[in-house]
């Protein structure tokens, strides 16, 4: 299972989080995990609109070497990138008078959280949730 959603405005972000929730439900995630995934997609997609204007969200089913089922979301843009990632990942830091909870909060909600970014080369954030998390 794999889906790609182009993100240009908030309505797209709402569609993407709904798709994430649907796929999570089909894979057998609990309602709480479905919500963790949906809220994470919402935060990252809104960031993309705000800081990078547009981009895309890929949602897919994954398996690890042991056959463990998971859901992976990639949020990819060609925006300005994040210069100081450590700062951006800290609770309350925001360059837009936002709450500054999006990145650190999403990290708390998911099992895996990986950022690839550099100034001028866009941002790719990959998040994963495992059906039976070995660590939570």
């Amino acid at each position: 299972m794999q889906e790609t959603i182009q993100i240009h405005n908030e309505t797209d972000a709402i569609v993407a989080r709904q798709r994430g929730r649907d796929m999570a439900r089909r894979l057998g995630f609990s309602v709480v995990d479905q919500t963790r995934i949906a809220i994470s997609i919402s935060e990252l997609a809104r960031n993309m609109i705000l800081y990078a204007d547009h981009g895309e969200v890929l949602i897919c089913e994954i398996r690890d070497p042991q056959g463990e089922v998971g859901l992976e979301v990639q949020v990819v843009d060609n925006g300005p990138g994040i210069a100081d990632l450590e700062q951006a990942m800290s609770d309350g830091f925001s360059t837009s008078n936002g709450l500054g909870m999006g990145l650190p909060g999403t990290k708390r909600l998911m099992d895996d959280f990986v950022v690839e970014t550099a100034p001028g080369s866009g941002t790719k954030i990959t998040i994963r949730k495992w059906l039976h998390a070995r660590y939570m």
Partner: protein
Amino acid sequence: MQVPILKMNDVLIVTLGNEITDEEAIRIKQDILVKIQDTGCEGLLLDISVVDLIDSFMGRVLNEIAEMARLMGCRTAISGMSPQVAITMIELGLKLEGVYTALTVERGFDWLRNT
């Protein structure tokens, strides 16, 4: 989306839907505040039982409505938050401050009528 605002015994009741855009949020705020002024109601009940997640955008909207209503002299209660919404909201790091919370519409309504 035009959000209907119900008036019942001096309490305004608003049922918030799931997919509120920025523009709708701005309109909802204005509609609620004007209604407070027009009706003189001192209680506002936001029912969120159909809301399936509160992200930082929605959290901000709820906090702003409650704070704006308070400035006008109207108290806000929020009813019907589901367990998954409460858990994920706290994990994300959001707070709802200065708002009374109730399990059901009935209890939120009773609280607003009796304070």
